[in-house]
């Protein structure tokens, strides 16, 4: 791989390398629909260091995809509006930058792989052209050279016969191969942060294993920070270093991978882990989380999880739980975090 030396300060003025790679701090996003303000993200915070993998876990509607779009700066505004918080890359708050800087950051510093590669790729252009576009737009590379770079990238992500495949169109690729093309595009400008938003949800298990292995290999080679957004706790257990669990637009638990799985400190995480069918549940009723995820337009008062929570008491209905840290680097937004962590609840 031809290593290009790049000065990060060129595209990100004011970058401070003593700060964390990416820091999301109290992010608030709301959608304005028919005069109503619907909160989608309500104070999400997490940190990503170089070479680490952070898994953001949550069910549909928990705000995980909106958070990733806010980091990338690709939210549709309106109807969405970022109403508070910061997204700091090397200490620089991206939310305060002008569109020109944000454009430079996208692709160069932060790139994203979407879930549905078929609708994320343009059906009218060959994949080689679409990958090459990044080099032409961001680096002013000639068409011919951009094509060569595209071949190199396709080869790196494991597409056989890249030389011929570069001229093919998205529909000519299988689901797994299209996801590889997406990854090639995301890697083109050698970003420091890669956001993978449900990258394998639409794929079969054997193909999922190939794609996750590829992502992991590339991340290690390039020392990238990886944000993996998923609902599949199996995938999380396989690749993540840290986990942020989201519910109703909030990060409700944040900890190292082992702590989350072995000693969860939030009832939601605990219930989620119990709800997975396992060998020892065969022939038994599954433990489930009763009820439905809340409607973000009408969140319950107090802790938003209380109507579905096995540990809820009266104060959960009225008081918003504070962020508690039952152990070092292990936080939970629950009144009874200590007790849940100690497995007393």
């Amino acid at each position, binding site marked *: 791989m031809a290593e290009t030396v790049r000065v990060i300060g060129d595209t990100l003025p004011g970058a401070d390398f003593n700060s964390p790679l990416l820091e999301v701090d109290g992010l608030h996003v709301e959608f304005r629909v028919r005069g109503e303000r619907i909160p989608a993200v309500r104070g999400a915070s997490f940190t990503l260091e170089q070479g680490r993998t952070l898994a953001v876990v949550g*069910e*549909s509607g928990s705000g995980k995809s909106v958070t990733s779009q806010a980091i990338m700066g690709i939210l549709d505004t309106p109807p969405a509006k970022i109403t508070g918080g910061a997204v700091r890359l090397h200490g620089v708050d991206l939310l305060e930058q002008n569109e020109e800087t944000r454009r430079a950051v996208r692709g160069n510093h932060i790139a994203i792989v979407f879930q549905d590669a078929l609708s994320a790729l343009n059906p009218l252009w060959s994949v080689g052209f679409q990958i090459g576009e990044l080099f032409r737009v961001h680096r002013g590379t000639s068409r011919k050279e951009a094509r060569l770079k595209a071949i190199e990238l396709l080869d790196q992500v494991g597409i056989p016969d890249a030389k011929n495949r570069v001229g093919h169109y998205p529909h000519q690729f*299988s*689901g*797994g*191969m299209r996801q590889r093309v997406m990854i090639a595009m995301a890697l083109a400008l050698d970003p420091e942060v890669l956001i993978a938003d449900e990258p394998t949800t639409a794929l*079969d*298990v*054997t*193909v*999922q*294993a*190939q794609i*996750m*292995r590829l992502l992991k290999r590339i991340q290690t080679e390039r020392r990238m920070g990886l944000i993996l957004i998923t*609902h*599949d*706790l*199996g*995938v*999380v*257990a*396989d690749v*993540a270093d840290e986990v942020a669990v989201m519910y109703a637009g909030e990060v409700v638990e944040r900890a190292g*991978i*082992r702590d989350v*799985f*072995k000693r969860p400190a939030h009832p939601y995480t605990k*219930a*989620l*882990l119990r*709800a*997975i*069918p*396992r*060998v020892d*549940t*065969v022939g038994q*009723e*599954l*433990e*489930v*989380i*009763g009820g*439905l*995820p809340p409607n973000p337009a009408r969140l319950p008062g107090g802790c938003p999880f209380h109507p579905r929570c096995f540990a809820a008491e009266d104060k959960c209905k009225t008081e918003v739980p504070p962020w508690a840290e039952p152990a070092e680097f292990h936080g939970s937004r629950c009144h009874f975090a200590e007790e849940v962590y100690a497995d007393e609840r």
Partner: protein
Amino acid sequence: MNAELGQADRGVDPVLEAKDLVKHFPIQRGVVVKRTVGHVQAVDGVDLKLYPGKTLGVVGESGCGKSTLAKLLVGLESPTSGSIKLQGKEIGNLSNRRMRPFRRDIQLVFQDPYTSLNPRLTVGDIVGEPFEIHPEVVPRAKRAGEVKELLDMVGLSPDHVNRYPHQFSGGQRQRIGIARALALRPQVLVCDEPVSALDVSIQGQVINLLERLQNELGLAYVFIAHDLSVVRHIADEVAVMYLGKVVEQGTGPEIYDHPRHPYTQALLSAVPVPDPDLRGQRDEIVLQGDVPSPIDPPSGCRFRTRCWKATDHCAEEVPSLDVGDNGTHPTACFYAEERDVTHAVK
């Protein structure tokens, strides 16, 4: 092929039986004069037996023919050849009109609860619609009450009969689909990926509901899914499909703890396990490439192009789904050998 007989009570006849079931879809070219240029071999010689009150799980990746199999079983597609028997009566090649009385006994639950419910009908109309087609099941005067009872049975409030599908969440819609399938009091439910569109916390609710209904009503299920852990949880017997053929069939423990076909082993090893301590400890088999096209499947064993055990023999002869030497469960592989790929998971 008597292995699965041993699993069920002897003397009980299967409620649903398929023999050498084949479905080939012709590929046609030309606008005025159509000519057939090939066939998509979606299902190619599948045998299965389903016993009353039992669940047969069918697993496989996209394109393996599991959804076509579901459509064949409920009579939404007619087979190219082979037979389907429902309670001993052949239904595979009946005309639509003669098929109608049998449809009562075998119903389908669809994957996508968003597109399988008519948005213009109320829930009461959706669940009660089967009675319009089969008026003999419930007298007209009692239908409204029956619909409410069905809603109650699947855990929805009977007061919601006048609501529309968009007023329900995904899990609730799947319950409506199940209530509709139960309306005619069928013997068999064919569930085509019934929980794959749902969130984890909701998945469990629907699985529990299906299990409860099976116990209460003595239903038999064909449960089609790509999620191996869900199938393990619910199925008594599992059939693994690859490119239109069943490659291995056995009880849950036989398939999951003692898999013998290389494809089953690869499939099981690819499922990520929700336990970070097992990272890097599993026996990982990563298959190369994608599933070949069912239009022109490989000769001999269809899995041979991705198989690490393949020899010339595999290209020449089609392995049949045979019981192993020591009476082990049926596996369609010349080199079938047990490999415990999930041992670390237990």
